[in-house]
């Protein structure tokens, strides 16, 4: 995933089944939509990705032919829905190479996964004067739950700084892990800058001090394959909707031993073994952390997402996306008066930029008129904006269905901005 100059990357196709972006585009119906009379150019994939036909059809089929509650019915539909739902847990396990389906907790998404760890593991293991370590490039969802935990427990939040390129300063990160550190929480890929953190190395640094590590994988899983056992992370959280799946469903992976020692996060149905008014016995993993009727439909849709992802030749996809980002960096970065924010050596999927004398919000509105969807603002990462001394950026973020032609359209759109603001 190393960034190279564009000239270096016109290498021949990687071996494997290959990857045809036009074929992929045909399976995403929304890409045919017209916006303000122009062809949609969807470059807001870090916010949410579009969904292929197979995922949309699976959701439709679930509601039309086997909608039912799970884990309790003895009737046909309930058994079919339960089987489908639990089948997705196995698909998720395989996809990230977890050791057991007991380690796969379904919840709303990355944010809820981090809140679960802060609320359950954090409250049991973090006390007055303890420390929690994050980095300077985190999304608010990997800052605020830890701040809330600090407020409740009297612990202190430590932040490993980033440099001018948007890379975590590893020496500082390592120095901040100490005898009081109780947990480390880091993004795999920065949503605002695109930086890919060397998380395997960072996890090893924390483990050398006996400190567990949570990885916010929301922006990583759409761009490359993740193996939680190879990383040796203790927790890994990600969301379906950023990897071509439905909204409202995600996974928290946790090592079985750690999850077993953690108290439940929410109480309710499905997470219990028996209830009397005197005492409740909790259910086993993973159900202990899945109180109430879960998001059955979107979980089953998530299953179709894993099938879609498993059909891809990931060497070819990674190569294609890498080349696309390098092309965008060269094309957009060459526009006079424009500055790219986030120039880490290893990046995935994100091109953030600012322009002289034109506010990102104005750029976003003008691009929208050209049919180009980008995100403008602080990207739920205000500390990152403060670090670079800017209120906001324009963020173009890419998925496997984006093309060079769309990046050319973005470049033309930016020239349109310059015309308006001459």
């Amino acid at each position, binding site marked *: 995933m190393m960034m190279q100059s564009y000239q270096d990357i016109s290498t021949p196709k990687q071996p494997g089944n290959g990857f045809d972006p036009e074929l992929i585009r045909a399976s995403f119906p929304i890409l045919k939509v017209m916006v303000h009379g122009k062809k949609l150019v969807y470059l807001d994939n870090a916010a949410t990705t579009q969904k292929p036909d197979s995922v949309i059809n699976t959701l439709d089929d679930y509601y039309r032919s086997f909608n039912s509650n799970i884990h309790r019915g003895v009737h046909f539909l309930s058994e079919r829905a339960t089987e489908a739902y639990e089948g997705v847990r196995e698909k998720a396990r395989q996809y990230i190479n977890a050791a057991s389906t007991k380690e796969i907790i379904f919840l709303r998404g990355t944010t809820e996964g981090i809140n679960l760890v802060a609320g359950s593991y954090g409250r049991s293991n973090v006390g007055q004067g303890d420390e929690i370590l994050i980095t300077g490039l985190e999304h608010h969802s990997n800052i605020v739950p830890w701040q809330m935990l600090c407020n409740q427990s009297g612990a202190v939040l430590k932040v490993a700084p980033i440099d001018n390129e948007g890379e975590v300063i590893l020496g500082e990160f390592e120095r901040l892990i100490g005898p009081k550190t109780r947990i480390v929480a880091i993004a795999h890929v920065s949503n605002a800058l695109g930086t890919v953190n060397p998380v395997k190395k960072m996890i090893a640094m924390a483990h050398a001090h006996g400190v567990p590590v949570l990885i916010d994988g929301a922006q990583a899983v759409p761009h490359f394959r993740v193996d939680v056992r190879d990383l040796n992370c203790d927790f890994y959280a990600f969301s379906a909707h950023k990897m071509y799946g439905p909204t409202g469903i995600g996974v928290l992976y946790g090592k079985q031993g750690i999850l077993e020692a953690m108290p439940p996060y929410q109480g309710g149905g499905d997470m219990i073994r028996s209830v009397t008014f005197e005492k409740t016995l909790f259910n086993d993993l993973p159900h202990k952390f899945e109180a109430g009727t879960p998001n059955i439909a979107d979980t089953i849709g998530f299953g179709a997402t894993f099938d879609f992802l498993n059909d891809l030749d990931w060497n070819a996809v990674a190569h294609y996306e890498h080349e696309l980002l390098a092309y965008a960096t060269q094309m957009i970065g060459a526009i006079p008066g424009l500055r790219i924010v986030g120039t880490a050596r290893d990046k995935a999927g994100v091109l953030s930029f600012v322009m002289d004398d034109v506010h990102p919000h104005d750029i976003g509105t003008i691009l929208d008129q050209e049919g180009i969807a980008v995100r*403008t603002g602080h990207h739920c990462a205000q500390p990152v904006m403060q670090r670079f001394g800017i209120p906001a950026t324009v963020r173009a973020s890419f998925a496997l269905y984006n093309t060079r032609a769309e990046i050319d359209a973005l470049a033309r759109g930016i020239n349109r901005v310059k015309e*308006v603001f001459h």
Partner: protein
Amino acid sequence: MSELRSLYQEIILEHNKKPRNFGKMAGANRTLEGYNPLCGDHYTLYLKIEDDKIIDIAFEGAGCAISKASASVMTTLVKGKTREEAQKMFETFHKLVTGELTDVSFESLGKLAAFAGVSEFPARVKCASLAWHTMNSALDAKTEAVSTE
């Protein structure tokens, strides 16, 4: 492109480039911050009010072209006006950018008419009205920073 021109009128682009009454003001007796958390527009408004009249007004800060031009045009329009006149202007402006103004000819709106296009861009209404909301709160002697959220 025609919709875009209706948003980015010459007056707006010109006030964005050269905002009037821009900078910190000495002798202000009301100072209030306005903040749009979604996009980071952030201004401080300075007012000198005597006998219920806006003797002087200035602003500083940063934000998008719509918010900055709106603040700039506002300062030129309300300077010398009474509190009542300024608040009436705020109401007119608010109706204009939310598309509720139908029975007024554009000529009578003067410079405000440049902001009529904002109503076609719902995401930008907050930008256009930030400075106006801030002024309205300052006139009511409120001291808490104005947030559009």
